[in-house]
């Protein structure tokens, strides 16, 4: 098992280098030379050249990329054009907020979707199933930021129950988390249902029933444990979408997370901040995916055995 984890960690390195390169390359073709932006219209050619050197913008793309990676390994993401603050620090300041939002959103998603998916599968083709599937379809079809606006309208502006923005106190996380969680919940409801339907057909449930296991235990112990395996996989894949969704929710609810940082930085053409935040976010996604794969291996003894041999 340890060898499996080490192998996966090693495989992470080229992926992370690739991620950094792609983001770095995309951000480098950004139109307009940032040097003009910083130096102002009256700067001379020498001043511009000196500034270029200072900002680390001299040399070819490849040269700059390796310099960037070298700094990244030291934990240095450069300095924001706008605030002149250290990008790594900016990012780390915002990260806890985003993680809080993302994890509560995922909890909301699981709490809504797994029971709904199980009920739908156990009562296949009944009105409960139809209702659950309609809800899931609506959840998938609804743009999350619009849902966020509607929630804000109802629960904070009309009813006044919850704050409409900011990150003060526990209640402020509820609306953004529901906003992000509903889309994931819709997807997970479908996955849970189809995975449960698959498992409910299996012979080993008949064996369990034949030895007198109660129907409740058949569903929640024997079936669910098998059905969870594909659900966990989806969970890992979707973490990236949760972070993406939180960019929108953070904008709607003025939540001071990484998403806001990126959107504001783009507005101000603050390339180092955008690049740094994107690279760090993607690394986070990759590491979470690795963790999910490891959990997956622990849940499914067949996979665990494959790697312990």
């Amino acid at each position: 098992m340890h060898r499996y984890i080490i192998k996966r960690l090693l495989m992470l390195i080229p992926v992370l280098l690739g991620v950094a390169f792609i983001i770095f390359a995309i951000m480098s073709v950004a139109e307009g030379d940032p040097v003009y932006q910083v130096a102002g219209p009256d700067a001379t050619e020498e001043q511009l050249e000196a500034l270029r050197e200072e900002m680390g913008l001299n040399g070819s793309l490849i040269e700059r990329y390796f310099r960037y990676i070298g700094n990244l390994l030291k934990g240095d993401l450069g300095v924001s054009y706008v605030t002149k603050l250290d990008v790594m620090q900016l990012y780390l300041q915002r990260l806890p907020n985003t993680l809080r939002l993302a994890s509560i959103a995922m909890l909301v998603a699981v709490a809504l979707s797994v029971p709904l998916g199980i009920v739908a599968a156990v009562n296949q083709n009944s009105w409960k199933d139809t209702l659950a599937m309609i809800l899931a379809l609506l959840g998938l079809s609804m743009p999350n930021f619009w849902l966020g606006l509607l929630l804000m309208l109802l629960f904070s502006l009309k009813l006044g129950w919850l704050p409409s923005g900011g990150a003060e106190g526990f209640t402020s996380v509820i609306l953004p988390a529901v906003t992000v969680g509903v889309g994931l919940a819709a997807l997970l409801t479908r996955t849970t249902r189809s995975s449960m339907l698959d498992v409910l057909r299996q012979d080993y449930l008949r064996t369990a029933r034949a030895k007198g296991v109660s129907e409740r235990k058949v569903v929640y112990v024997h079936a669910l444990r098998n059905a969870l395996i594909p659900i966990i996989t989806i969970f890992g894949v979707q973490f990236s979408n949760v972070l993406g969704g939180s960019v929108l929710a953070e904008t709607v609810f003025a939540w001071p997370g990484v998403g806001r940082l990126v959107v504001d930085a783009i507005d101000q053409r603050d390339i180092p901040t955008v690049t740094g935040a994107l690279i760090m976010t993607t690394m986070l996604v990759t590491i979470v995916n690795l963790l999910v794969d490891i959990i997956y291996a622990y849940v499914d003894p067949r996979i665990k055995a494959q790697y312990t041999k």
Partner: protein
Amino acid sequence: MADNAERVSKLYKKRSSLGMAWRQLRRNKGAIIGMILLIFIIAGALLAPIVYDYNTDVIGMNVRDRMQWPSAEHICGTDDLGRDIFARIVYGARYSLAVGLVAVLIALVIGTVLGAAAGYIGGAFENVVMRICDIFSSIPSVLMAIAVVSSLGKSTINLMIAVGIASTAPFVRVARAAVLVVKDEEYIEAARAIGQPDWKIVAVHIIPNCLSQIIVQATLRVGSAIISAAQLSFLGLGVPAPAPEWGSMLSAGRLFIRDYSYMTLFPGIAIMITVLSLNLLGDGLRDALDPKLKR
């Protein structure tokens, strides 16, 4: 002679399997609802210029009529510049559908070609393509699109490219998987045995066989591409003002949400119904074309 007979039987087979899928689809209530909704939306988008004049009704200001709640005259009300929201929504369908379709087309072409080539060629090439695919899927697609738009600049075309690039990876995966399944079938070996060139085998035998999966994937992706585009416009990175894009209408409406909530309501409903109809149709197509995937 034999060649002809073979061709006829092949055609017959193709038609009958398509016919079967169509019969399946017709029995699926959700798919029919989705199709009808979609026809209405497309018809509305196409006919919009006949009913509304773009310059006066859609982007022209009319300050006297500003901020009117829905009424018989303006069934969705008017916005802060006095423009009829319904007219803007109907026109906006053109943007959303165009962005969704073109973005998916970009993703489909690049993704299918890369995926099919990866699956067929295999080896190091396949490895490289799939790793790049991994890299792209670990960047959250909203952030990916944000990066592309902010780097290329704000315009409708760039929005299409950004959303397209961000949704390419799934097509690569689907195409590769489909190719891997059919690659070792006997009729492919037969084609190879009679000396058909690789490109012809891929184009004539392999791609048509994974077409159904790609169609399903594409239909479902148009919906999410429309949402992505609306998200970017909402963030101010999409179709530039004053064009009536649904996402930017929501972004504008948001400023007045407390007192004029209808401005936030209707563009969102438009996005939801459009995506819903695409999802209904896509689910129906999946069940009809790919019985293996059926729940």
